């Protein structure tokens, strides 16, 4: 049966804008990811791209829910919800059994527990944004790689070269120093991933490690990080091709649930 209620979720992140349109709260009609975050043309472009792909107009959307770092500055939202709730809802839709969700975004990392399909509790990175998506962007740039190439390099690593600095800038210096010693770049990538995994694993442990685990957010596309994190925690981690859209997905579901509640 064709969908008659469309809800749209938009996750306005610090580095990327993600948009997803849902039909009747279940069917993914369209989605868009634009690598430009809040304060840029990214949110508007993501919205337009998702609408265009779905061949819908803004008037066809019954509810728009904004989430993410730039949620409050997105104009036209019917609902504004934290990315913690949206990732919990989105992850639950993707992995109904998951109890713990790890989301590494552009500027923060989160460990989220799911209770009854919703946000139960959470722990976020403190003090600074080390070990987040931005950290990996910086490292990839130093290595003259695209961030999408990191996983492939990691898979070819023979050993892990430890990166100990917490500070992104100091870690960058450490990587440069290793490069000048002509170490294998794959081993260096594995070390970068391990450093992110250790930081993220401590968040998960503080929350309480309750399997099954799932990972959302753009960084979950990096199989090297997922592998390092899985090894660090001693648990399997489920990942979906839609992981980067989890926040927008959860937002669209939230909008639908709100509409249902009104009825």
């Amino acid at each position, binding site marked *: 049966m064709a969908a008659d209620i469309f809800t749209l979720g938009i996750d306005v992140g610090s580095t990327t804008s993600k948009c997803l349109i849902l039909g009747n709260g279940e069917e993914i009609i369209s989605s868009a990811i634009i690598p430009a975050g809040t304060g840029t043309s990214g949110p508007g472009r993501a919205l337009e791209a998702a609408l265009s792909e779905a061949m819908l107009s803004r008037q066809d959307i019954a509810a728009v829910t904004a989430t993410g*770092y730039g949620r*409050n500055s997105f104009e036209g939202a019917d609902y504004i*919800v*934290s*990315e*913690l*709730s949206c990732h919990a809802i989105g992850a639950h839709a993707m992995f109904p059994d998951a109890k713990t969700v790890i989301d590494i975004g552009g500027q*923060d990392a989160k460990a989220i527990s799911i209770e*009854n399909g*919703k*946000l*139960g*509790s*959470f*722990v*976020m990175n*403190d*003090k600074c944004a080390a070990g987040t998506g931005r950290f990996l962007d910086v490292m990839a740039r130093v290595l003259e790689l695209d961030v999408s190439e990191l996983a492939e390099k990691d898979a070819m690593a023979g050993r892990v070269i430890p990166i100990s600095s917490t500070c992104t800038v100091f870690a960058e210096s450490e990587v440069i120093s290793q490069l000048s010693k002509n170490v294998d770049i794959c081993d260096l990538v594995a070390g970068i991933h391990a450093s992110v995994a250790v930081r993220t694993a401590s968040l998960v442990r*503080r929350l309480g490690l309750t399997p099954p685990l799932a990972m959302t957010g753009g960084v979950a596309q990096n199989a090297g990080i997922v592998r390092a994190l899985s090894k660090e925690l001693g648990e399997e981690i489920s990942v979906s091709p839609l992981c980067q859209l989890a926040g927008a997905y959860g937002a669209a579901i939230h909008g639908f649930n709100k509409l249902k509640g009104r009825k």
Partner: protein
Amino acid sequence: MPDTVEKKSAKVKLRELQDKIAQDAWDAKNRGEKVGWCASNFPQEITTTMGIAVVYPENMGAAVGAKGGGQRMCEYAEGMGYSGDLCSYSRINFAYADLKKCEELEIPFPDFLLCCNNICNCMMKWYENLAIELDIPLLMIDIPHLTKEKCDPERIKYIRAQFDDCIRQLEEITGKKMDYDKLNEVMAVSQRSSKAWLRAVSYMSATPSPFSGFDIFNNMAVACVGRGTPEAAEAFEALADEYEELVKEGKSTFKGEEKYRVLFEGIACWSNLKFTYKALQSRGVNVTASIYGPAFSFLYGSMDELMAAYAYVPNSNCFEKEVSLRVIDARKNKVDGAVFHMNRSCKNWSGKLYEMERQFKEQTGVPTIVFDGDQSDPRAFSEAQYDTRVEALVEIMEQNKKEGK
């Protein structure tokens, strides 16, 4: 929705009293009397009884932070060579000691220093440093950290011996004599103030609470420094009476509907006070529990109990007791969640915060958040990070209410 009421006269009385205490110190200085800089949890009963004017660098640090000068003063101190990891109150004070001026607030320069390590360990080195830099005497009372619930007789004896020695030295420095009959009177007045303060904050258990929990941050200043004066006792009694009346009328100074009630743990982010308050208030979240309620009431009936009272203050008290105080307060005041301030200034407090949060959550079952900040250095605080945590906490509390938790 409870009616919003204007600020009551007790608050004005407290503010005026705070100004008077500050002015008294300036007047004493101008008369040529010896004036001290004093740690906030130093037994004020001594100085009040002896009629010695003291001022509080910690209070100045909070006020400078609240008035927007924290970062400037901290950066100045860092330029002098002090580490940015030191407490921001100490950095503001080091900057002031060197600059001898501060556009937000000034306090008279000291002739001696009174330090007590029950609130903070950094403070010992802070005051030692001041004593050397300003070449003035430092009187230190060492209050051993409690490792169990009760302060034992050995500790009391140890504190009392220092107390007596401190009085003797203060008599030498200031030329003023201790009158032990008057000390008993001051102790009695302090008890009046403490009991009135406790009665005032006890009304937070009402629904709605008769006042915005952030008011505590302002009112506690007098509870901290001036509770030994009859004016303070009267002001706190007036405050308690006003809150009692508001409870009867179902009114509150909290603006808007009190949808959720939370415990706020830690010192306020003075430099970001408005933002931290608004993010909660705009979502209908009122603070109805804070350790500043029970912590700044010193109840005692004898000299020995007075000694023990200064060992029971936060950061000196045993950890399990500290957790239980918060749990009891949270239950009594019916909180739906808790906000923990990871105050980067205070290693003593932040070092135990995660474990405190874990035990609090385990014992109360309410959701909690931790946010990074600092008492007077705004560089440790991120508005977006704080707002996201608060928003998510509200979403969890909303869900819990729906599910009848």
